[in-house]
């Protein structure tokens, strides 16, 4: 950081907060939905599919976190976690409905 803390503009600070929330909350949402889809769609016995979903979720949380700080704007951070979450939510919801009609 070349400038001292005092001189960082408010817009910068807000962007950081926004990205952090996208990472923490949006990332968690994304990771959870990945694990749900894996648990419902993997062609394994229920407990094994659930376990796999659980274990792999953290990889996606990590990737989401990295995305939120690597992408070019806070808006992209949110889009990058919310859009896939929407898609996964739909897939997961459909899979759940198929299993429990």
């Amino acid at each position: 950081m070349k400038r001292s803390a005092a001189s960082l503009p408010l817009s910068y600070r807000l962007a950081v907060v926004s990205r952090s929330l996208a990472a923490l909350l949006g990332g968690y949402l994304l990771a959870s939905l990945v694990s749900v889809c894996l648990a419902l769609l993997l062609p394994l016995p229920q407990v094994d599919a659930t376990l796999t979903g659980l274990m792999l979720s953290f990889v996606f949380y990590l990737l989401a976190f990295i995305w939120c700080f690597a992408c070019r704007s806070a808006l992209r951070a949110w889009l990058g976690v919310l859009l896939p979450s929407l898609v996964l939510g739909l897939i997961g919801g459909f899979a759940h409905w198929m299993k429990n009609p």
Partner: protein
Amino acid sequence: MKEGFRQAMAWLHTWTGLIFGWLLFAIFLTGTLSYFKEEVSHWAQPEIRRHTLDPVTSLGLAQRYLERNAAHSDSWMIRLPSERDAALNVGWRDPEGGRRGFVRKDLDAQSGQPVDARDSRGGEFFYRFHFELQMPYPWGRWLSTLCAFIMLLGLVTGIITHKKIFKEFFTFRPGKGQRSWLDGHNAIGVLVLPFHLMISYSSLVLFMYMVMPASIMASYGNTNGYFNDLFGRDEAPKAAHVATPLVPLASLHAKVQALVPGARVGLIQVQSAGDRNARVIFTQSSADNVPYKRSANWTFDGATGELLKQGAPESAALMTSFSFAGLHMGNYAGPWLRWLYFAFGLAGTAVIGTGLVMWLGKRQLKHARSERLPGELRLVEVLNIASMSGLVLAVAGFFWANRLLPVALHGRADWEVNTFFLVWLASLLHAVLRPGRRAWGEQLAMGALAFALLPLLNALSTGQGLNVSVPAGDWAMAGFDLTALACGLFLAWAASKMLRPPKPVAKRAAKAAKVSAKMVEVQ
């Protein structure tokens, strides 16, 4: 954030490292101590005597004790003594008494009598602290798991940021100020990376059912179904209220030995003892296998002694998750591997510690000429000191309290814990009141004294000092004293470095400028 990917990751690494570093340091240090929690407990409760292991006799004694004292309870458990844990531990469900409705007692493995040991949580305190953080359930677990995730993030962002990870794989250049700290931080991170990654990821796996419940909810609707499938549990049959004596547990032990020769038994659970529908479950010791094995569970009919079922074989997914858990816990590790676990845990602690020191050090250089640090840097300095040297002092304080508090004092176990936190708090106050470098030096020096004198304190207060424990071959007791001495020596060395006057500011600033210039060139 408009800078390159690597720089964004460096930013993320630095800031998450700072914010979570203090807590992570505490988690790693107490977690590292936990690898020797049985040995620490042995030192903390020297009244529990070790005997040659005799599982058959111990089982008989445990059964007799429980039949006499816990006949009213429908759920018993027995933990046999092991090479590392001398006590024969029994427990039973009693809604009236005990912590959370469960009573536990340590029995002497030879006589079967309850041990009259000083009340102390021993190594279990550090073990629980590192994932519960002394916070009410379940908040501590959530926080520590979040910290584990941030550690994983720190490792990954660190790898991405470390451009010369291969070129500088073998590089460590001491005596060069900030450059050396960075070399050390990188080296300890990279060379022990498999361990750091394993420890962080496995921490997440251990509590994944709690922190990522969505998949369980979506596929099972509740956790019971999930856990039943996972562990292959069947509903225990309700008591028939027909009194039938429980078979001698030793006979069941023999059956397990016939099935798996040489198996060490970790846990024995008895449900509805003394009833026709009694069930006895033998679980193989976690010391025998790296992953927990649900197939290493045998359920017997408690009235007839017939083997009813063995745990189902594990699938790949199960083996994977249980391996993560097993690797984290390290129960399977023999002596030399356990020491390596301890060393690697300290390495992880050092990664975090060096990171915190560097975060401040780099920014302090800019203020080398001014009288005082700006507020936020002073805050970091105080927190660095309290969370590192202060924590070490608190650990020593726990052990001093263990030896000095009267054995008969009511609630002494809680007072040992209180001492830990009081010393920690005192170190925070000390760090606020004293100038940075002096605070470091003074706390490290106090820590050095506190640890180095522990063996003497032990000898004087219990008569089981090194002069007794070494000839007797009590290596847990002796090992603790010797490790405390080694800690004392290390802390004394560190204190000496901090108590020496620092190189004159002008020279340091000039050197730092040269080093920074070189670093810019090199990148």
